[in-house]
């Protein structure tokens, strides 16, 4: 919790900055459209229709959709358009903020009586005087109402920017969800809500001032906004990198193991004087694409996942022959360098309650296939669309009574409370040690190996050489224990603390590696 608190100012500043930038962009787009709309019903209908359609797309999907769009743009134009981080977040959030701005603007201007417009012209106001002193001032309450709605929505939706690699308060929320650290989740939510309330109050004061042509409330509102802006600027000034060298960016997916390993490597690099930035909570596919695009420098991924998802293979090949092919193809297709095979595996496996498995006599997936029609399956969000699921179904003829997708952190709970009978588990999951579950053997070897790899972005060869010493250093037992330290409900450790423990256990990173007897072999889970 103290670690979460310590990271709050940075997340808050980043959150405010991305929200403000998106809102400003939306305003720049919406303002001319609103001013063009009166007397152009066709434009009005087209613009409002489009904005309404955008609003029906869930914010998360909108953010994610900008990734392939920007990749397409980059391929089509050859320009170095970044597809992750700031740009997609900015565009998606701005698009999301358009509707309330357009509604407020158009509604506000339409509500001005014709007689008032006519009088403004008739007494000899210039067009700009009419716009500022009559139309905008009169429309201000409705326009500001739209702006306030847009601001609150944007600040809420900006938590999702974390998923496409843009730091925000979502960092706290997503990491908290994964680590089941509900206080941290709450901290992120409360911070976002408080920010939204403060901004809303400031804009409310501005609104009151503009509508009544009174300076004091408007100035108070502006002062509040300026104070927030100064806070962001101050934070950046305070946290600006001391060294001129650009920080190495480590990206993580949304689960504990990734957070811990990122902290481990970060501490190691920092100790050597290298500034490091950890960008946590990236979507699974986005993490790899981000690495390939150079948006992050270091990532952790798994052989089976890369084999099927990144390289699109449908066949399952033995571990020994997969790695060389994988290395070659990743390099050839994406330029991504495999710096090290860490030494543990985080495999997909099917798991059941121990009591059920004993009662039904299920030890392998072949055994499971016979009883599967009576059982309900719970998977993570992506498994049912992955090649591995197709492979499992083909190899075993698996047919379940029903299949649901859960966010990974809740799958084990679904198994424990009986909402599901079989789940997709991860072999390095710390909770496996605690839960009374069994992993079923993949007796027909339908699933590929999932050896954890340290990946480095294209062209970062020196960095890859530096990370090569992690080869085989982190065994399955160590990883599982470190994961459990972060995941367990009581006496929880932060990823950084778990990383420190892991570093101590695995040996000093500074000295030459002592040859420890921790298992560098895959977990015996499958």
């Amino acid at each position, binding site marked *: 919790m103290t670690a979460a608190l310590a990271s709050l100012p940075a997340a808050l500043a980043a959150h405010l900055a991305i929200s403000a930038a998106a809102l400003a962009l939306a305003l720049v787009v919406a303002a001319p459209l609103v001013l063009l709309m009166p007397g152009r019903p066709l434009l009005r209908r087209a613009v409002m229709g489009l904005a309404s359609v955008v609003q029906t797309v869930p914010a998360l999907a909108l953010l994610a959709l900008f990734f392939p769009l920007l990749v397409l743009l980059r391929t089509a134009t050859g320009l170095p358009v970044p597809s992750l981080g700031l740009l997609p977040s900015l565009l998606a959030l701005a698009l999301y903020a358009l509707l309330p701005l357009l509604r407020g603007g158009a509604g506000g201007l339409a509500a001005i009586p014709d007689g*008032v417009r006519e009088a403004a012209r008739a007494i000899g106001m210039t067009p700009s005087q009419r716009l500022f002193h009559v139309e905008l001032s009169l429309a201000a309450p409705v326009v500001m109402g739209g702006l306030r709605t847009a601001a609150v929505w944007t600040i809420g939706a900006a938590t999702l920017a974390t998923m496409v690699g843009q730091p925000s308060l979502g960092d706290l929320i997503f990491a908290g969800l994964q680590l089941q650290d509900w206080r941290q989740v709450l901290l992120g939510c409360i911070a976002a809500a408080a920010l939204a309330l403060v901004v809303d109050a400031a804009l409310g004061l501005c609104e009151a001032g503009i509508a009544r042509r009174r300076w004091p409330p408007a100035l108070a509102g502006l002062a509040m906004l300026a104070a927030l802006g100064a806070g962001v600027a101050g934070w950046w000034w305070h946290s600006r990198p001391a060294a001129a060298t650009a920080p190495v960016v480590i990206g993580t997916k949304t689960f504990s193991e990734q957070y811990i390993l990122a902290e481990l490597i970060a501490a190691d690099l920092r100790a050597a004087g290298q500034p490091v930035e950890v960008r946590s909570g990236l979507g699974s596919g986005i993490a790899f694409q981000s690495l390939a695009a150079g948006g992050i420098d270091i990532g952790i991924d798994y052989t089976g996942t890369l084999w099927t998802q990144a390289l699109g293979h449908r066949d399952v090949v033995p571990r020994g022959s997969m790695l060389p092919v994988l290395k070659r193809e990743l390099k050839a297709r994406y330029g991504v360098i495999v710096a090290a095979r860490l030494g543990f595996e985080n495999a997909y496996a099917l798991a059941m309650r121990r009591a059920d498995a004993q009662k039904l006599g299920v030890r392998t997936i072949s055994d499971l296939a016979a009883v599967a029609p009576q059982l309900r399956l719970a998977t993570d969000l992506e498994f049912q669309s992955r090649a591995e699921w197709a492979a499992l179904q083909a190899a075993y003829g698996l047919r379940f009574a029903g299949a649901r997708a859960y966010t990974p952190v809740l799958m084990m709970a679904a198994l424990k409370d009986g909402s599901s009978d079989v789940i997709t588990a991860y072999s390095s999951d710390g909770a496996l040690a605690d839960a009374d579950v069994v992993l079923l053997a993949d007796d027909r070897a339908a699933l590929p190996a999932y050896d954890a790899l340290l990946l480095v972005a294209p062209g970062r060869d020196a960095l890859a050489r530096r990370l090569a010493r992690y080869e085989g250093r982190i065994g399955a037992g160590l990883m599982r224990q470190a994961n459990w330290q972060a995941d367990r409900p009581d006496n929880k450790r932060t990823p950084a603390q778990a990383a420190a423990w892991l570093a101590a256990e695995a040996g000093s990173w500074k000295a030459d590696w002592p040859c420890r007897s921790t298992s560098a072999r895959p977990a015996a889970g499958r």
Partner: protein
Amino acid sequence: MSPAPPALSLSGISLALGGVPVLRGIDLDVPAGSLVALLGASGAGKTSLLRLVNRLVMPDAGRIRLFGADIAAADPVSVRRGIGHAVQGGGLFPHWTVADNIAAVPWLLGWPKARRMARAAELMAMLDLPERLAQRFPGELSGGQASRVGLARALAAGPRLLLLDEPFGALDPETRSALADRLEALHRAEGLTTLMVTHDVADALLRADLLLVLDGGRIVAAGPPALVAADPHPAARALIDQPLAQARALASLGARPA
């Protein structure tokens, strides 16, 4: 005919809005100092005539001269600031106080604040508006008060020409008559030239120096009230006959034995 140029002169004016003819072949000279009443059914072109004079719309053909100067050659904003125009319905700015509304044109002309506020106070006194209303907003006024504020706004910068579009439209007869008296007195005292659109034919007949009857975008009768009252044009007759018939009926009511 006086030797001085007319305050307002329209020659060969026609105007179409959205392809529909609104005014056709208007020729008109208004001598300085006249109080002109524009009469006619709705859609006859009365409001459009005022808007043309204030350069809110440009004619398709013809020329408008204000005190001898062609308004097409002048900057529209300065033309408008030199004319007092009270639009239909008043058009008061709902977010400005009464004093700010009245002093709108002086503000546009860059008068210092003290002079603006003094002028607003002066006009409020002239038009029987209580001083305490100065800092109120238009939404808090009665219909009669709002009409007075509209009138005061048109008068504020001391224009030579006043354009009034149904200035007493929605008022009760008593208020209307009192306000019309006050307006007429101001018009005479300040030597204004006033064009007023009105539906109160009896009032127009009694007060105006010049009556203009518009029908279908043309001036069908023009002249001093006595002349127009005798005009045979059916549109003029239809307008004038109604108050005359009313007056006769009222007179016979008074003659009836008790």
